[in-house]
């Protein structure tokens, strides 16, 4: 049953999957609590624009996708700060534009590009050592930025209180936007553009259902994210299913279980109230 782990491509997939899951479920707690679930989707489609541009230019797509996605997220936050438009409206605009640009880039490329599909739906077979190194770098960045958790949590709770206590919230919003963009891009190969936002949203949302503290939510989200990645990859190998989709189904099962726990504890509390 563990013989899959002796295969080099599976080893790479597992390491990449765990790193991506860690990143997405860590940043996911801020995404979920700030009501930015749609941002994951928007950035994923920005990544699609970047990947398509990379394919068109014949360069390593992810190397083009990183600056492209970072630029889009900076633009989203910039417009958000300067207008009264709601976040999802601004994201909606950039999301559509990046997607449109991506489609045009792909159509300009004359040869058939099967590659595009592996980016849309993820392909663990395509994970290279370079991908692993880049992911490891992004994980390192997340760990270095980890002392900012408290600041981010404070501003997530109440932006204005955080400003009054001299938290540089505007800077932090850009920082978080950039880190999220990079995370989304490194997740592309494992998860696929279509499903990335699930990695950001579902583990954190599941954790939110069963915790009373943000710190616990953070740990639990990481635990849910990483375990569903590990088991999902293994399951996808055993059952010959696409990796990203299998992981997302596992995340959804965890979410359902948490929902069950929540319903049950409420029912028990209500029962006690009646007794």
């Amino acid at each position: 049953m563990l013989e899959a782990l002796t295969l080099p491509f599976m080893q790479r997939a597992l390491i990449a999957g765990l790193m991506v899951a860690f990143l997405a479920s860590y940043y996911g707690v801020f995404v979920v609590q700030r009501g930015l679930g749609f941002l994951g989707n928007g950035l994923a489609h920005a990544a699609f624009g970047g990947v398509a541009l990379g394919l068109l230019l014949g360069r390593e797509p992810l190397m083009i996708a990183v600056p492209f996605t970072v630029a889009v997220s900076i633009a989203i936050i910039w417009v958000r700060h300067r207008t009264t438009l709601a976040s999802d409206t601004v994201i909606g605009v950039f999301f559509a534009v990046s997607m449109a640009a991506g489609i045009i880039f792909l159509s300009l490329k004359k040869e058939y590009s099967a590659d595009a599909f592996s980016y849309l739906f993820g392909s663990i077979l395509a994970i290279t050592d370079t991908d692993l190194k880049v992911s490891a770098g992004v994980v390192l960045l997340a760990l270095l930025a980890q002392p900012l958790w408290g600041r981010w949590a404070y501003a997530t709770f109440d932006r204005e209180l955080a400003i009054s206590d001299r938290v540089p919230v505007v800077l932090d919003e850009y920082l978080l936007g950039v880190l999220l963009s990079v995370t989304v891009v490194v997740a592309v190969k494992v998860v696929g553009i279509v499903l990335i936002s699930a990695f950001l949203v579902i583990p954190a949302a599941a954790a939110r259902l069963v915790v009373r503290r943000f710190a616990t939510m953070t740990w639990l989200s990481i635990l849910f994210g990483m375990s569903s990645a590990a088991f999902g990859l293994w399951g996808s190998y055993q059952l010959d299913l696409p990796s990203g989709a299998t992981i997302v189904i596992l995340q959804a099962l965890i979410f359902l279980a948490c929902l069950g726990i929540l319903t049950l504890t409420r029912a028990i509390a209500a029962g006690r109230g009646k007794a």
Partner: protein
Amino acid sequence: MHAVHTHNLSLFLGESQALADISCCVREGEFVAILGPNGAGKSTFLKVLLGVLEPSSGNVLVFEKKPREVDPAWIGYVPQAKTLDRNFPALATELVVTGLHRTWRRRISAADRTAALSALEMVGASHLADRPLSALSGGELQRIYLARSLARKPRLILLDEPATGIDTVGETDFYRLLARYRNEQNATILMITHNQEVASAHADRVMVLNRRLLGFGTPQETMCDECLQSAYGPAHHPLHLTDLRAGSHA
């Protein structure tokens, strides 16, 4: 020393002018109540003192420094009860601890917990310490915010309609607590309220605001009809239409 000193302070929010030419001085240790109709710029004024909003023109000094240069530990702020984010997973104690550390803490140390509990005790909310925010009533949450602002032992307390939702017994206790804290620490208090009786009973001076500073003096001086009319206009007193226009569209 002046706790607050503003000179010709003006502030535009978008296209509308929220504050116009406000010049005032508040001495250290004073209790000032701020009165004014909805949309008068009262909350905006406190946010300028906090350093959250930058004035468009004029000067503002808090303890003789620019607001952003003041040590935030000196200022305790209770924001206006808005649609508070109850969706954030947190226990009441954790919110109080942000008053001590000015950041969100992963863990609550024993010392922090003791300090938070004593702040909660002051506002009569120690029984709420371990409740999640989502399980608090509006008035209960307001008390937690009060505890949070006092936990850091501020020299200047900025209160934006702090008694909103607090029951009458609680309100009496609250003003008693403020008075005691002020005497012990020589703290300065600026409190926005819509309650004129509260303002005249507890404040040394009353500031009447409606974009402009329409009156600033002892309760006897400012709570005269003329001054209040100029701020609130004919809704209260059918006469003096001209004063209203002068006040709100200045």
